């Protein structure tokens, strides 16, 4: 008998997935889901702040999603997300009495809302699907519009999937109180990105996905709320990623392992490692503990303390997101599945520090810790 690397079962199941009555890619039921999440950043300690508020962002997020087949070949999707944010954000840093960077924060707590609506349409052909999506996001100082195109092709009798994606986004930035604080009045930026991935069924129990993406940002890339933040007006970023899934029969559980490498010409490169264990408990419960480790190197023009002696056209930023640091996220998700509905709840705890990174970095005082809790409900009808 055949002694190829692929087991006969995998080959036959893959081939069966190309049969019209079995191909499962197209949703046959309408799916609706709602999710509400609460995100809370830990407040800053008094000693790290020179001026301004110590409380950081709290965000309440409500999401709604509807995906409905409209004919044998088409499905339409609607996603609506609404966020209410409150808190203060870092404006800059100065050298404190001990020479370490201290923060200048926005004075008062800011309260903002963001609404995002996304519409998508997918066409399911034989061995392929094509999708188009439009996304619009609005908040009082920032509007974004994006279009996404995607395609997926089944290869090797369904054992492999090739995905290609392309997107373009155009963002308008209108900082609040521009005149009072001497901020730019109106700026814009755009981004073009392309991605490709190949997913391979390795055997009955495991799959591997290899992907890569590239994004070109251009326009106003500075943070308009910082007292001094000057960045190049173009950024080229790229990433490669690996996703491995393996089901263990004897454990009735699945291991998820992901890795992502990111690099851009601001000089940042980062590694993300993610592992999760999806354990089935009986026929209906699923518990998924997970851990994520992230490490990045600082951008070429990152400085710990704003340097006002430099000309205002010279690149520099004290943004903690451009500093060298590492972060851990510890999460737990619990899912209860019924035949046509499911409930899920999750908590995540995130901590970051200059010391956690793979390259040694000075601890930026604004590096985050946060907790996030969410609960979601899915219905199929």
């Amino acid at each position: 008998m055949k002694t190829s690397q692929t087991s006969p079962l995998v080959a036959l199941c893959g081939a069966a997935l190309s049969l019209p009555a079995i191909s499962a890619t197209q949703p046959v039921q309408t799916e609706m889901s709602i999710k509400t999440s609460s995100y809370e950043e830990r407040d800053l300690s008094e000693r790290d702040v020179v001026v301004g508020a110590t409380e950081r962002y709290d965000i309440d997020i409500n999401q709604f999603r509807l995906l409905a087949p409209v004919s044998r070949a088409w499905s339409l999707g609607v996603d609506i997300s609404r966020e209410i944010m409150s808190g203060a954000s870092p404006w800059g840093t100065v050298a404190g009495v001990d020479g370490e960077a201290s923060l200048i924060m926005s004075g008062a707590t800011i309260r903002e809302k963001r609404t995002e609506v996304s519409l998508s349409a997918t066409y399911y052909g034989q061995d392929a699907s094509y999708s188009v999506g439009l996304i619009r996001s609005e908040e009082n100082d920032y509007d974004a519009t994006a279009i996404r195109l995607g395609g997926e092709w089944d290869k090797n009798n369904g054992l492999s999937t090739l995905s290609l994606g392309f997107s373009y986004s155009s963002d308008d930035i209108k900082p609040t109180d521009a005149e009072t604080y001497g901020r730019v009045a109106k700026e814009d930026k755009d981004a073009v990105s392309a991605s490709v991935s190949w997913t391979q069924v390795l055997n009955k129990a495991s799959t591997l996905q290899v992907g890569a993406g590239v994004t070109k940002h251009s326009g106003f890339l500075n943070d308009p709320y910082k007292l001094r933040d000057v960045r190049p007006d173009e950024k080229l970023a790229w990433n490669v990623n690996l996703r491995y899934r393996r089901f263990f029969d004897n454990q009735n559980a699945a291991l998820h392992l992901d890795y992502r490498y990111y690099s851009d010409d601001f000089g940042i490169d980062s590694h993300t490692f993610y592992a999760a264990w999806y354990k089935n408990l009986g026929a209906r419960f699923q518990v998924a503990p997970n851990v994520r480790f992230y490490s990045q190197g600082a951008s070429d023009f990152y400085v710990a303390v704003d340097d006002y002696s430099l000309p205002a056209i010279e690149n520099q930023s004290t943004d903690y997101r451009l500093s060298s640091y590492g972060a851990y996220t510890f999460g737990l998700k619990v899912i209860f599945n019924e035949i046509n509905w499911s409930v899920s709840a999750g908590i995540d705890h995130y901590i970051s520090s200059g010391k956690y990174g793979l390259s040694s970095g000075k601890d930026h005082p604004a590096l985050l810790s946060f907790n996030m809790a969410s609960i979601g409900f899915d219905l199929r009808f």
Partner: protein
Amino acid sequence: MNTVTNQFRAMGCPCELRLFIPDKLNQEKVVSCCVAEALRFEEKYSRYRPSSLVSRINAAAGVKAIDIDPETSAILDYTRVCFEQSDGLFDITAGSLRSVWHQNMKTLPSQEVIERGLTKIGFDKLIFSTDSIFLPFTGMELDFGGVVKEYAADAIATLAKSMGIQHGLVNLGGDVCVIGAQQDGTAWPIGVIDPFGHGEAIARIELSEGALTTSGSYERFFQVEGKTYSHLINPLTGWPVEGLVSASVIAEQTIVAGSISSIALLADTAGGLAWLQSCQAPYLAIDQNKVCHGTLK
């Protein structure tokens, strides 16, 4: 919620539907759509119906190509994978060997007759694309008997699910596909017939998703010169198979379970067991010495 049981005949077999139909659905319509789907496959792929697509393809053997639709093209692609994975044992062109071995023969065919029969078969000799198929020699025949009934069970289950059925069982001549568990959450008990018994079950298998198929060489056989031969012919040797007596397989799809169990019976006993093991799907195989093998009990 109403439980509806409907029995009918299609593709030469007794068939049964057991569906838990929510009150908001029209029971009769759900059942008649499912039965119509089974009959659609019979009309399209039965070689006993002169108007079927398969009969038209076979009638045009050696003469011309016949147009095919995407569904038939997908089934042909599937049978190609079966042919490759089984190293040629599963061959939808092997049907013409029935003219070499048949019920009413008095003497064994000569080796010469068998070899002449073998020249008329071979999946790799078929010429087909997504739009058409051409059987290159007169007398060559397609027989979808090993896959269409199984695929029809999957198609009926998919159709029932799309109409809102969440608990049900589709049984087409012993190839069983279930839609979820029973309404009360318990698995469907499915009996596997004892090939050496008189209709009693040798195992009772609980199924709450996927499909269970059984292939048997015991169902049809013939006797020549005092010896019993299986109706299954090995397309590589041209001789009736002498291997496992019965193989039952569980897989997510009926068509997959069905082709795994069919291939297991086309090899000799050791080859059939090795094939079942390499497939990593739960199975129960019974050999000629009445010994049970496999992971299902």
